[in-house]
């Protein structure tokens, strides 16, 4: 099916998210949309999908103007979408999620779950997924959840499929599988819109590329364009794609972790007998597919996990069993994985967020009183230093874009007197310009002689930053390898295989 968007303009209040956008997708083509965070890609797709109503412009399918009052209409017209943020209901089973919205029913509205299960099995078989229709979605690893999203989109025989950043949570292998599926769908005549920040993927699979910046189409690129050409087009300036760093000057071991176990609320050992050291002035990256215990490991270091055994010490003093506050005060900086949930208080101002984890002591608090004057100066300084783009330091943090939110968290953590820096997914979902900035700051931290732990599921990031890499699989460390280990070896380790010659 041919899809055409004409003159789409979408405003949120006074913010113009899409500004007179034209886009055509030919039948059976994979069309990539590129753009920084907040460029308006998702918004455009949501307009196409009927989720948002555009102020101006029209959607045409096979040259027929469409009127979508809601996603129901769009789906009926043959449009399917895999959303950037999972649109799955965690407490429902896979089959229930897939059937939702077009349920087959029996007497009295009784759900025909068997039909839904059969459908899930059928699609799973066709694309080589292994998905249990009766599993609760909330219990599934994100990679599998992504497949459920895809099954959902496919179960309705869509003629146009939109994939909005589907690869953000996939392993390299899973990403490759997805590419294969996309090509398979394309060969069946489905048109595909593919949104991603990973330029490698774009060049691999795209037939055509459209770049959006600040709500406008700024140009088309061919799949043969180089990474830096694409990046420049996206950001509007040239971007450094590799992290410039000197070889590490490691000092003595700062963080020592020995025989660490973390047990979750169901009694599962999500971190299993993990031991490692991080030396002052080096970056240890913890690689692995999401959900293999990395999150819990970092949370255990910060004292956020209730059931932990083993030893954690920093510069010779034990951190085990201390409260979060004590651990923070011992000089541990922490960037949590989910910045909106765990890193920031969305309703608080930027300034308030900048003092969030020092809310009980000088310089921000004296005798129980907030030092608002000092806070204002401090926040202004950090806003400039970290280039936080905002109206003022009194803007709500929740209103910032993802990259800027991440900068607030970084500014807060890096402005403390650190003895250890732990960052989880520091660049997830943020644009290349911001990534560049974040990476620079992390290397600078290392160079200041602080041990740094980075958890990332992005191999690009791991390779770019790490002096050493620990790969986690099912709660255990598969091996710790040098920073220059080839990607394919890392990929295998992420799948739990220990290549010979690697110390386990």
């Amino acid at each position, binding site marked *: 099916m041919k899809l055409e968007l004409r003159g789409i303009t*979408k405003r949120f209040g006074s913010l113009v998210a899409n500004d007179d956008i034209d886009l055509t997708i030919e039948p059976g083509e994979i069309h990539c949309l590129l753009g920084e965070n907040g460029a308006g890609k998702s918004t455009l797709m949501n307009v196409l*999908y009927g*989720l*948002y109503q555009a102020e101006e412009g029209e959607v045409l399918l096979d040259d027929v103007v469409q009127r979508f009052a*809601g*996603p*129901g*209409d769009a*789906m*009926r017209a043959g449009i399917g*979408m895999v*959303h950037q943020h*999972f*649109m*799955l*209901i*965690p*407490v*429902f089973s896979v089959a*229930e999620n897939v*059937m*939702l*919205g*077009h*349920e087959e*029913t029996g007497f*009295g*509205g*009784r*759900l025909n779950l068997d039909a839904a299960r059969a459908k899930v099995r059928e699609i799973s078989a066709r694309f080589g997924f*292994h998905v249990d229709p009766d*599993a609760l979605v909330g219990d*599934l*690893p994100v*990679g*599998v959840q992504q497949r459920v999203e895809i099954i*959902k989109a496919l179960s309705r025989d869509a003629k146009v499929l939109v994939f909005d950043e589907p690869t953000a949570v996939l392993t390299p292998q899973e990403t490759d599988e997805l590419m294969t599926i996309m090509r398979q769908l394309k060969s069946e005549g489905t048109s595909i819109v593919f949104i991603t920040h990973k330029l490698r993927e774009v060049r691999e699979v795209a037939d055509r590329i459209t770049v959006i910046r600040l709500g406008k189409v700024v140009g088309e690129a061919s799949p043969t364009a180089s990474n830096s050409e694409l990046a420049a087009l996206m950001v509007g300036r040239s971007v450094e794609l590799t992290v410039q760093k000197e070889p590490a000057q490691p000092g003595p071991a700062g963080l020592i972790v020995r025989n660490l*176990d973390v*047990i979750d*609320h*169901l*009694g*599962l*050992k*999500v971190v*299993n007998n993990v031991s490692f050291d991080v030396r002052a002035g080096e970056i240890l990256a913890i690689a692995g*597919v999401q*959900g*293999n215990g990395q999150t819990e490991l970092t949370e255990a270091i910060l004292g956020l996990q209730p*059931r932990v055994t083993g030893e954690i010490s920093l510069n010779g003093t034990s951190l085990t069993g201390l409260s979060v506050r004590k651990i923070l005060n011992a000089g541990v900086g922490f960037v949590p994985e989910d910045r909106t949930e765990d890193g920031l208080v969305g309703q608080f101002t930027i300034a308030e967020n900048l003092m969030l984890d020092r809310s009980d002591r000088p310089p921000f608090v004296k005798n129980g009183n907030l030092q608002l004057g000092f806070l204002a100066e401090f926040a202004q300084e950090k806003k400039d230093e970290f280039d936080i783009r905002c109206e003022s330091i009194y803007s709500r943090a929740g209103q910032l874009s993802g990259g800027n939110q991440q900068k607030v968290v970084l500014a807060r953590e890096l402005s403390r007197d650190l003895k250890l820096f732990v960052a989880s997914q520091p660049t997830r979902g943020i644009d290349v310009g911001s990534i560049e900035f974040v990476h620079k700051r992390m290397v600078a931290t290392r160079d200041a002689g602080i041990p740094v732990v980075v958890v990332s599921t992005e191999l690009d990031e791991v390779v770019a930053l790490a002096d050493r890499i620990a790969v986690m699989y*099912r*709660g255990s460390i598969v091996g710790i390898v040098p920073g220059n280990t080839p990607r394919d*070896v890392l990929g*295998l380790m992420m*799948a*739990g*295989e*220990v*290549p*010979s010659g690697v110390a386990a």
Partner: protein
Amino acid sequence: MTTTTAPESISASLESATIKSWKAPIAYAIFTLIAILLFVVNGRDGVSRFRLSNEADVIQLAPIDNPTRLTCILLVVLLIAITVYATWLSSRAKRVPLWLTILFAVAFMWAFLTWAAAGETIPITGLLLGTVALSAPLIFGSLGGVISERVGVVNVAIEGQLLAGAFLSAFVASVTGNPWAGLVAAMVAGVLVSFMLAVFSIRYIVDQVIVGVVLNVLVAGLTSFLYSTVLTSNTPLFNSPPRFPRISIPILSEIPILGPVLFRQTVIIYIMYIAVFVVWWGLFRTKWGLRLRAVGEHPQAADTVGIRVNPTRFWNVAIAGAIAGFGGAYFTLGSVGGFTKEMTAGAGFIALAAVIFGRWDPIRATLAALLFGFATNLQNVLGAIGSGVPSEFLLMLPYVVTIFAVAGLVGYVRGPAASGKPYIKA
């Protein structure tokens, strides 16, 4: 490159460790201690008689005569045994099964009744019959709460829905002389309150808790005002609703113990049985329920599959109001005639507690409401047989039991994820 470990699927289960939870044994131990102090150390003599049948019953069961002291001692030994077993289970990091808790509760309650009724008779059917009656408005209210919160609208306004239902049903049934008309009016009243809740929380995006609280106040004020100005101006005409008669269901009503308790009731109670089943079945087995729960868990996800979130919320909140309205009718058409100011007396809040206690599940919420009704009626029975405890402490009983149950057994509960959050489309 050789591999030493075979690749496994990511979703394969992890090694499991042991979590020891001492909550259950501690709770058991506390109650066992109370039992020892009260039933053994402070034991009583005599015979405690549990009467299982009424004179009118076709099948007569002989009353159970418990020698008070002996029964108490035996039961306390059983309680100690259960506590020891639970401690052993916990020390081996095994879960304490639900049946054990139920056994413990039954044994404790039996011991308590035996102790309290030394030399007296406890009418077991009466105790249970009253339980059903006292729970009825709570059950209707909590069903309304469950539906509303499952679809994503926090329903603090149950009290208002009950009160509005009671008021309008009394008025309409009186004027028409027809209790069925009153029942319909009660539904309408509940729906009207729901409409306010829905309009303000969905259309005007006012915090749902605020709307709920304020609606309770509004309905209380409005019904009291109209009661003083209208209903009392001509009580025989405006506030003398006919009651539904009690209907005995043939055969079923003759089942020993349960028959008189469950099947000699007014039509409102029979509607309640149906409502509990229908709401449960509907929520978990039908398209309606699936969509409803989807909207309450993740409205945006529901939207993306073509479910219209706000209309779904609106109409289901209305249904919730209709069901809660029935509960209001129970006050005036099923129980004691006539409306009085603020006659629901906090039942809506208890129903709200039952919703949370029952973890937003219609069956569990019903059980929670029944527990509350049981404790209330136990208080009645103990007061009547003269247990010597000051009446205020007996009146406290249902509330204290609920606190213990919530703090000791339920603990942390999580409602529908999107409950209380407005859905705003761009």
